[in-house]
């Protein structure tokens, strides 16, 4: 066991993948010489040379190059500096990477990973703060992962790189500095498994990424008020662990989904709809969501504070659920 920061866990996962598999190749803007805008790739170029490369600012072509490289024997890991810039990679991800396996009759898969940071809280403004993971979760053929702590950042990134299919790996900016334990000799985790981060019998709160910590804070305060909330960290959004949610619901009979992404048409909407279909008999209250309002992410700290879902909102929702 060692304590590492989230960003360092990403760095270690990349280093270990590069070390163990000569097909792994890293590229992105300012990732090599400088080590990435968030320092996640620091030192990797020195160790692995040309397998870690800076690219020009050409997201559309870099993402499609990842597809071509994956089809010709590499396991490319592309960094897109902010998730907002994923808009420029949509053809590569949606039309190419996601389709290849099915569309070519199962001849091949596309073992590529796109790492990208999402999330606000740093006054980065409307074009550097968005959480767009639902877009990718909507596309058959893509996997979407969003870890909430250093151990998962390591284990799930290793899994994403080893995975034969294309993975969008989302890192919440607010988590890069977070410290956590990373087990000695940790390896890949399995994709698609949720984790119970806090047990409870009164309500289930499903979250992913930084929202897991919002949910945990809320659960701590609710416990003082006598409400025991079970917090599930989804970890993987596509596929998501339906069985784990159902299993928890069978105990709590109340469900709240929390995420930083916009509520409308989001991950929470999908989970709510699905659980409404298969878990109706278990529900003692309507499923609720706490997520961002239908507004661009604002710049002013005061506006952004009003925008982001916080523990107070989660607490209020749980109290309503359990009323």
């Amino acid at each position, binding site marked *: 066991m060692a304590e590492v920061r989230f960003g360092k866990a990403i760095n270690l996962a990349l280093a270990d993948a590069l070390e163990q598999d000569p097909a792994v190749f890293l590229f992105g803007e300012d990732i090599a010489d400088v080590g990435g805008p968030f320092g996640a790739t620091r030192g990797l170029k020195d160790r692995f040379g040309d397998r870690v490369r800076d690219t020009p600012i050409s997201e559309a*072509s870099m993402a499609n190059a990842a*597809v071509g*490289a994956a089809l010709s024997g590499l396991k490319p890991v592309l960094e897109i500096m902010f998730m907002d810039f994923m808009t420029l990679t949509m*053809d590569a991800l949606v039309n190419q990477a996601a389709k290849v396996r*099915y569309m070519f009759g199962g001849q091949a898969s596309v073992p590529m990973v796109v790492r990208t940071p999402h999330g606000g809280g740093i006054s980065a403004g409307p074009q550097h703060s968005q959480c767009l993971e639902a877009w990718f979760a909507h596309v058959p053929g893509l996997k979407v992962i969003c870890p909430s702590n250093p151990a998962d950042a390591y284990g799930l990134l290793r899994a994403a790189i080893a995975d*034969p299919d294309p993975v969008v790996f989302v890192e919440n900016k607010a988590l890069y500095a977070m410290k956590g334990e990373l087990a000695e000799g940790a390896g890949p985790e399995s994709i698609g498994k949720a984790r119970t981060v806090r047990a409870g019998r009164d309500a289930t709160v499903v979250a992913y990424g930084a929202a897991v910590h919002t949910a945990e804070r809320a659960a701590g305060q609710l416990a003082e008020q006598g409400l025991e909330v079970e917090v599930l960290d989804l970890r993987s959004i596509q596929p998501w662990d339906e069985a784990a949610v159902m299993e928890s619901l069978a105990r709590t009979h109340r469900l709240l989904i929390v995420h930083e992404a916009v509520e409308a048409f989001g991950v929470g909407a999908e989970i709510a709809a699905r659980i409404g279909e298969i878990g109706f008999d278990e529900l003692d209250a309507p499923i609720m969501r706490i997520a961002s309002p239908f507004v661009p992410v604002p710049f002013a700290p005061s506006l952004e504070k009003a925008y982001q879902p916080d523990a107070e909102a989660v607490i209020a929702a749980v109290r309503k659920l359990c009323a």
Partner: protein
Amino acid sequence: MTTRKTAELLELYERMYLIRQVELRLGRLFADGEVPGFIHLSIGQEAIATGVASVLRADDSVASTHRGHGHALAKGVDVERFFLELMAKEEGMCKGRGGSMHVADLSIGMLGANAIVGASIPIALGSALAHQVRGTDALAVAFFGDGAMAEGTLHESLNMAALWQLPLVFVCENNGWAEFSPTSRQFVASLDKLAGAFGIPYARADGRDVQAVAKASERAVAAVRAGKGPRVLEFTTHRFRGHYEGDPQKYRDADELSGLGEHDPLSLLEPRLAKAGVADAQLQSLHEAVDARVDAAVERARKGSAPDFEAGRADVYTQTGAA
């Protein structure tokens, strides 16, 4: 006795004739409702696919366009599985899930036709990157039409290919039309100047003349394989048919349409074959053999089975066996 040179010429002719016959047949099958969807034929442009592919190795990769039948056949895809695919059968090369615009055979480096204009270029770029990183002397070819010259991916990829000195040959098939608009109304630059701006050697040749195409390609491929970085080739050619089968082509002058026969790459080669001593009877038997091959492939395709929806559903992601 046929000399080696004559044999090579005959081989080029046979490949072009095969592509022509396959596509003429597709035109009829489409009109008769045996090929669903829509198809873009490369009739009149066979010399480019054939000439370029004639200088490629099996481990070289090719990324193609929506008008990609010729590229696939020139790279060596199986004719039966090709027809099976276009006739929407389970035994097709993509199990009936891709169709005309997605014919692919990754085992021979055919990375797929592609329904997204401009996508072939960065995909081939990534494939070239893989060849470079893996330290082989294989190369990649990006086929694209004149219409794709206005896509950002070309400009981004020219830059990247030059920056990283990638083993990539850009091949523009300039048929003067992008759908229903002439190139002159779409693109103000010229590919030679564009290539020059990135310091990439450029060559143009008559795309009707398979020998000219092969010669230009041979030079480019030799340079690229020798590690001298990317090359750009532009072949002028003529689209004999509509943009798609069934296109009434009201936007084209009657003169242009009636004069297309003069630009036939097969007719251009026939007198050269005669001069090289190939007797009419020899050509006749070549025709008969190819025709019979196409007939047999179509007959086989007609007997193919309907694709299995559930099998396809299970093929969106790689099955790891863990589930």
